[in-house]
């Protein structure tokens, strides 16, 4: 009888203890870093510089698309679990715009590695610079985009994970916090997916379309001005960096592989010409 009672109370105690643990975990906040890059706007006409080594920089810029989804995901995780969202970019003065927009959407603070020298780094050096800038901080999660629209290395995130000694998963389409860490959904090729369980802290590279982006509100834009922004100079992080291991020798317009026929004229005429082709050459009408 006695033993049964104590056994029962033991169960109750364990349950209570679990409950406390659960509530503790449930409210355990997350500190998330989001790496965001500024890239030329999608529709911006790009021109080569005179040396043919890079584009002319007098174009309009925007945030790298998957990075916007990464920020949105971080804000959603914070809203669910509470915590802090920090955004970081490495780029010239103009890149501040990306951080401003992120703060307006709800990020808590920002870090700007500000120097023209942050343009044209290989992914290893960008990751080393970012790692050096956050060396005194501890994040539960780090998000990057899965790749940049300008360089398209598809590497900076995974390299950063390796430098920081974190586990990583790439091309992520869903994130859930669990007791033991996180449960994420990886996109694979040709419509396949895979769930992966992993411990925290971790780094994830985020795929576009993981969520629906929010807009900044007027209040958000106002508040952004008072939020903390830390500037980091190139000199501060340079000791952690090295020479670029890949060098762009030449940038140029790709050669056409096909003999494309351009149909010209006013719309009605073009429509006629195209239907002629579809009828007589493509033979689908």
């Amino acid at each position, binding site marked *: 009888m006695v033993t049964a009672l104590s056994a029962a109370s033991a169960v109750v105690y364990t349950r209570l203890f679990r409950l406390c643990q659960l509530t503790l975990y449930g409210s355990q906040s997350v500190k998330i870093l989001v790496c965001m890059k500024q890239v030329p706007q999608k529709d911006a006409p790009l021109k080569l510089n005179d040396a043919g080594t890079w584009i002319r920089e007098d174009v309009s810029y925007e945030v790298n698309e998957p990075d916007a989804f990464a920020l949105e995901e971080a804000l959603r995780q914070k809203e669910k679990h509470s915590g802090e969202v920090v955004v970081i970019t490495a780029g010239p003065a103009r890149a501040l715009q990306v951080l401003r927009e992120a703060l307006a959407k709800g990020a808590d603070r920002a870090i700007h590695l500000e120097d023209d020298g942050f343009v044209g780094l290989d992914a290893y050096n960008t990751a080393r610079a970012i790692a050096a800038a956050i060396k005194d901080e501890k994040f539960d999660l780090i998000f990057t985009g899965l790749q940049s629209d*300008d360089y398209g290395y*598809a590497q900076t995130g*995974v390299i950063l994970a390796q430098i920081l000694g974190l586990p990583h998963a790439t091309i992520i389409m869903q994130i859930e916090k669990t007791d033991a860490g996180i449960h994420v959904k990886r996109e694979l090729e040709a419509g396949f997916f895979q769930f992966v369980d992993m411990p925290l802290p971790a780094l994830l590279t985020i795929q576009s379309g993981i969520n629906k982006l929010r807009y900044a509100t007027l209040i958000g834009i106002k508040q952004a001005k008072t939020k903390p922004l830390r500037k980091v100079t190139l000199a501060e992080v340079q000791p952690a960096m090295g020479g670029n291991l*890949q060098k762009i020798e030449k940038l140029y317009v790709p050669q056409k592989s096909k003999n*494309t026929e351009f149909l010209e004229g006013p719309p009605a005429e073009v429509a*006629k010409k195209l239907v002629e082709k579809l009828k007589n050459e493509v033979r689908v009408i």
Partner: protein
Amino acid sequence: MAETILVIVEQREGKLNRVSWETIAAGQAIAAQTGWTLEAAVVGSGVTAIAGEVAAKKLAKVYVVESARLEPYTPDAFAHALEEFLGKHPAKLVLMPHTYQVRDFVPKLATSLETTAISDVIGVKHEGGKLLFTRQMFQGKFVADVSFAGSGPCFVTFQNGSFRADKVEAGGAAAPVETVNVDIPDGLVRNQPQPVFKEAKQAVDLTQAEIIVSVGRGIKEQKNIDLAKQLADALGGELAASRPICDNGWLPMDRQIGSSGQTVAPKLYLALGISGAIQHLVGMKGSRSIVAINKDSEAPIFEIADYAVVGNLFDIVPPLIEEVKKAKG
């Protein structure tokens, strides 16, 4: 001294990923230009049969990098296994296909060896004793020739379709196969992957469609999709889309064309307001005839189009629908 080029072929669940043949073709081309030795490796558990298949090609040697902990794939185990292998069998160049799996572990592996990976390469030149790797930049609007400035090894990943699998040369006799067991310590692997699955049931089979009208972000708003639908109907074809359109939920996922969607090869692929990012092109460039309508004359989609119309799709599509209807009587 002859340097070594190592091709790492990709296998998943014991099956060779066909794109690996393209990487071997790339390796053979570089070996022919440089005179370097070409070897291959297959990484996994119980994958000797694949090594046998690969050994029939013109290669100096094929390695099986083996450990039970390499199945299922994890970046921790793969990066560790290859780091250990390359420590014993150094290579100057390590070539792989630019698959999702490779993207997942190569940056980690290269970083652990304090070197770099030149990613998503579409061509190789050997000029003045120097290797130049061509890769796309700015979503295909430009390409760059990139050189390696480190001491090695240099990892290179090749975009799908940059080399032709049917150009792989067979070897005289089968290349020798050697198994190298790697030691992956307890606790090294941190991720626990679950089985791969396909999400939605396929409601349409676009691979069977002869005519496809495909819409991209140039369509601007969901309500405009109807315009494309009218064109598809007039032509008797199916409607498809680029990824952002499906991400927005304007069309269902099973109508997405590209690397993460469907691969199609219809008689006619008509692209409306699609820029032509490589992840889209890989899903449709095998089409017999490609028509592109785009307001940007520099859009990369025009590089693979047979017929191109530079202009506003909202001006061109309505008269086009009328003309198609007229022609069909």
